[in-house]
C-alpha cells in the first residue's frame, strides 16, 4: 500500500496532473491470489484524478487487498492535492453503482472517520456481484468542491 501511495505522490510532484492520470492507470503487477472468492489486487483501478484535476485519490479495502462480494467491508479513501498535500477536514459523500447494469449501490456507504494523512474510513460497502463498479467520491472543504470517479473492475 505504502509503495503504491508513494508512487502516486512522485508522479504528481514530478510530472503534473496529466502524467498522474497515466500513472494511475498503469497496470499493477499481478499478485498471488488465494483460491476462494472474488478478489482484487492493489492497482485494480482504485485510483482516480478529480474532475478539476486538483485532487488525486486512491480507494482500497481497509484490511487485505480483496474486495469481498456479499459481505460488509470497510474501505479507505486517500485524498491528496496534486501538489502532494493531504486533503484534511473534508466533508465526503459516496455514491456509485454499475452503469452497465442500470443499478446503484446496494447499500449506502458513508465516511465514518477521518484517519489522518488525507485518509478517510468508508463503512457500509457491500457489493453484490463482480463486474464493473463505479464509486463516486464527492469532496468538499472550505477551499474546494470536487468529485473523483473510481472505476473498479472486480473479478473472481
Amino acid at each position: 500500500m505504502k509503495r503504491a501511495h508513494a508512487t502516486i505522490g512522485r508522479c504528481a510532484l514530478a510530472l503534473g496532473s496529466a502524467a498522474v492520470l497515466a500513472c494511475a492507470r498503469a497496470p499493477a503487477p499481478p499478485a498471488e491470489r488465494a483460491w476462494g472468492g472474488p478478489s482484487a489486487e492493489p492497482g485494480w483501478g482504485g485510483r482516480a484524478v478529480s474532475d478539476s484535476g486538483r485532487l488525486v485519490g486512491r480507494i482500497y479495502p481497509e484490511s487485505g487487498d480483496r474486495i469481498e462480494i456479499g459481505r460488509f467491508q470497510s474501505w479507505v479513501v486517500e485524498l491528496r492535492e496534486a501538489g502532494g498535500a493531504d486533503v484534511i477536514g473534508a466533508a465526503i459523500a459516496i455514491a456509485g453503482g454499475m452503469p452497465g447494469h442500470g443499478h446503484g449501490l446496494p447499500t449506502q456507504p458513508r465516511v465514518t472517520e477521518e484517519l489522518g494523512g488525507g485518509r478517510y474510513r468508508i463503512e457500509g460497502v457491500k457489493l453484490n456481484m463482480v463486474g464493473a463498479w463505479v464509486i463516486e467520491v464527492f469532496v468538499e472543504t472550505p477551499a474546494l468542491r470536487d468529485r473523483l470517479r473510481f472505476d473498479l473492475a472486480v473479478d473472481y
Partner: protein
Amino acid sequence: MRLRGALAAVFALALSAAASAEEWSERDLRLLASLRLDRTLPPSPSNRVADDPRAAALGRRIFFDPGFGAAGKTTCATCHQPALHWSDGRARSVMPAGRNAPSVVGSAFGSWFTWDGRRDSIWAQALVPFEAPDEIGASRTGVVRRIASDSRYRADYEAIFGPLAADLLGPDLPRRAGPLGDEAARRAWQRIPQARRDRIDRAFSNVGKALEAYERTLLPGDSRFDRYVDALRAGRRDAAELDAREIAGLRLFIDPARTQCLQCHNGPQLTNGGFHNLGTGTFDGPALDFGRALGIQAVLLDVFNCAGPYSDAQPGDCRELRFLSRDAHVPLEGAFKTPTLRDVAKTAPYFHDGRFATLRDVLDYYNSPPQNDSHELRALGLSDRELGDLERFLRALSGAEPTP
C-alpha cells in the same frame, strides 16, 4: 481398419470426457469455489438466543403447533411444509394479493426477509404471520397467553428468557389484542397501558427469537454440483458428479457473455441477497405489489427491527439498517429479493407471485423478457437445447433435506 476406427472412437470419447474437466481455467475454478455451499452460520446480533439449542427446541414446538391460530389449524408449517422443501407448492399462499411462500431452508444466510425485505431478521419476520388475519390469525396477547398458560411452554420459555412478567400470567390479559389485528383487537390494545404493552411485546418478540433459533437449524445439504466442485479442487480430472449436459448448463450459468445468472445468483447460497427488478412488479389491480420500494419503508418503521427496543444488538451491529440505501428510487419499484437456487427444483412455482409453474417457464422468461427498459434483464437468445442444459444444471443443485 475397423479396429483402428473403433480405437479412434474410444480415444475421442475418452478425450472429450477428460476435456470437460480440464477446460476449467484458474479463474473458473476460483469462481466455482465461491459457489460451493458453506454452512457456516452468520451471527444474528439482534437475537442472543439464536444459537441456543433450548430456544431451537422451543421454536420447533411453536413452528408446528396449531394451537396459536384462531381456527386452530394454521401453523408456520402450513406454508413451510417439510415435505415440500419447507414451501407450500401454491402460487400464492394467500389470495389474491399474497405472495409465494419461500422455503425457510437456509434462511439463516439472509439479511432481509419476505420478498420485499420488510423485515431484517428471521425472528422479526416470524412474528408477522401470527397477526395476519389470513395466516395464523392469532393476536399479540393471544400468543403470549398461550405461552403463559401452557405449563410446558412457560417452563421452557422461562428457562431461556427468564420469568414472564406477573401481569402477563393472569386471566385479565385480553384474549385478543394487538396493534395489527381487527378493529376490536386494536381497540383492546389501545386500552392496555404502555408499560404493559411493552412487556407483551418483549414476550412476543422472544417467541420470534425461539422460532429463529429453530429455523437456523434448517440448512441445505451438499448437492451434486458441490461434490463436482470438490472433485475439481482435489485435482480430479475425471469428475463425474455432473454429466455432460449439466456441465454445459454450468458453463452457461457462469458465462457473462451468454447469461446474466451470476449477477444475482452468486456466492455459496447462489443468491446475492439483493433486490432486483425483473419487470414483474404489479402497479394496479387487486394484486398491487411495489416490492422493495415499500419494503424499505416498512423495515424502517418496524418496532422489531435490529435497531429497535426488542433487539439484542449492540450499537453498530445493525449494519444492514445503518447502511440501508433508503432511496426508494424507480428501479426498486417492482424489485424483489433474489431467492437461493439451492434445491430450486423442489420449490415450484416460482417468483414472488408464483407466476411461473416450472423451471423451464422461468428460463423462457429470462431468455425473452418483455421488450422494454423498465427492468434489468436483456434477451439472451439461448437455444432450446441450451435452455435444457441450464435446467439440468439447476436440477443438480438439490441436496439432502434437513430433519424437521
